């Protein structure tokens, strides 16, 4: 039913198609952009075609051109799709799980425990996210895994708060008491009754965040804290473009390809998630059912 509604809405339709496209690219990356001989043992390393720094415009060999450091943009964009899904899924998945477990337990148990946990969440939320991410990646070192850790540490709190609010509401429902009266254990009540009735808004929120995680990761790349240099990662590809966006004085778009391709990938990826998420919200939101 939800699917039908999604397909009927032109925006979410576009979103679904885009997402499908990205999934296909990610799955078939080894065929779309075969791993180069140069880095045969690590397909996520973008091959370089020269040791110089200057970008090179698209050619028949390099359909999207070479970006700063002579990295092949096409290869980076294709394999970057995998990285985007990987980072997005892991970060969203982990922070969702942590947030849901902590948030729902805290709300379900309530009382002093809830109070303590929420103060704990407050502490995490008191860090400006980007600064906190910088501190963590500076301490842990550069690398995608570190970025993921940093993102998870400061993302779960949002989910925890969201689900806590929902659980507090659902907790009042009589069916919870009914289950208790039926002798069902608290753990089972939480899993079987509380979570299924509270988790949906969190999942939608999470899907909306899938896209923005890629943007955040690219921001960290911009600050020199993202994926290791040369790793197929859109954020990094686009941060390679930072010095070239200005073009030359007589041709401001001289290096358009350095920013357009990876930029387009990010924008479309985020767009696809957001269009779906947006439509989802419209569908699920009982308030705007006219």
């Amino acid at each position: 039913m939800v699917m039908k509604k999604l397909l009927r809405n032109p925006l979410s339709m576009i979103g679904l198609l885009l997402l499908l496209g990205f999934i296909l690219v990610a799955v078939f990356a080894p065929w779309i952009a075969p791993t180069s001989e140069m880095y045969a043992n690590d397909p996520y390393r973008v091959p370089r075609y020269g040791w110089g720094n200057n970008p090179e415009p698209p050619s028949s060999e390099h359909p999207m051109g070479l970006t700063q450091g002579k990295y092949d943009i096409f290869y980076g964009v294709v394999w970057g799709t995998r990285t985007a899904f990987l980072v997005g899924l892991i970060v969203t998945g982990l922070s969702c799980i942590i947030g849901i477990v902590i948030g729902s337990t805290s709300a379900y148990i309530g009382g002093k425990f809830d109070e303590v946990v929420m103060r704990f969440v407050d502490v995490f939320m008191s860090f400006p996210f980007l600064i906190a991410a910088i501190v963590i990646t500076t301490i842990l070192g550069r690398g995608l895994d570190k970025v993921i850790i940093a993102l998870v540490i400061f993302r779960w709190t949002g989910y925890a708060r969201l689900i806590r609010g929902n659980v507090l509401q659902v907790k009042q429902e009589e069916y919870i008491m009914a289950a208790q009266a039926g002798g069902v254990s608290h753990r089972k009540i939480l899993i079987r009754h509380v979570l299924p009735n509270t988790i949906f808004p969190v999942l939608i929120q999470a899907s909306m965040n899938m896209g923005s995680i890629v943007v955040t990761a690219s921001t960290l790349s911009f600050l020199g804290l993202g994926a290791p240099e040369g790793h197929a990662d859109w954020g990094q590809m686009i941060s390679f473009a930072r010095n070239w966006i200005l073009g030359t004085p007589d041709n401001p778009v001289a290096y358009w390809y350095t920013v357009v391709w990876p930029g387009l990938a990010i924008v479309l990826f985020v767009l696809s998630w957001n269009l779906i998420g947006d439509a989802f919200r419209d569908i699920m939101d009982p308030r705007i059912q006219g």
Partner: protein
Amino acid sequence: MTIPNTGEILLDVQGLRKYFPITKGIFRRTVGHVKAVENVSFQVRKGETLGVVGESGCGKTTMGLSIMHLIQPSQGTIRLHTDGGWTEVNAQSIRRLRDKMQIVFQDPFSSLDPRMRIRDIVAEPLQAHGMKNRRQRYEQVEKLLDAVGLGSHHMNRFPHEFSGGQRQRIGIARALSLNPSLVVCDEPVSALDVSVQAQVLNLLHDLQEEFGLTYLFIAHDLSVVQHISDRVAVMYLGRIVEMGEVDSLFSRPKHPYTEALLSAIPDPDPDVVGEQIILQGDVPSPANPPPGCHFHPRCLYAQERCRQEIPELLDIDGQGHFAACHYTQELSLTGVSAGETA
């Protein structure tokens, strides 16, 4: 009307209290308590139905939930007679006792998990009590549904596909699934249409006979209680103010509050114009109950003594009709005859 079973006692409640703290200030200091249930003692005999009535907020639901240990009572002992012995109902024993005590909730819309199928809702207590085999469970569910007047074709549906009365039947089926001896019915029909109310009440009545159930039947409406109960307890501001056999209580109320409640029952015969007693004022806050008899500000017969002294709940006639009123002997209160209401 069944003759009250004067046999053994199933549930024994002594000095039950449930206080909710009122906190104030920065440090959440406890500055007082809402005494939702205050020193309530009563017994329920095996096979009988004890009706509990009172206005909303009088603590009857809290009492029911406390007995079920769905909320933690503040004080008092609750004992259940099981397998030829007494078991105290407390936080430790309650898990074991769940199959002996069950509850039917007030709101059939909120008491069923909207995301579960009927078969799973009804089977859940079975599963929790160790019935591992899914087939067996569903067979049992089928029987239960049948017993409450629903068919097996309902099993795979979700709650939102049912009407209120049907949902309450499902709730009852769930309560019966463990084959309990005591069922607390927490206003099971108050959320239903009048036409459906009678059906559900009849069902409960039939089930009682079929399964030999004992009911603690909570309602805010005396007319509902009249039919199903053997005995009735009337609660006011957390205390039982009168308790007795249904006939005796209805025809010869011993407490002015009961009298007022009785007078509010609409008479089916339009020619009989009963004198209705309108209670003055609102129910006082249980956080700050009036001194003396809690009912005195609204009582037509209140005397000086009522303002100062809390009356004890005493057996007035030596035959199990209790009342908590200083002047119960002096007053002659009007009741209704048992057959009078529909």
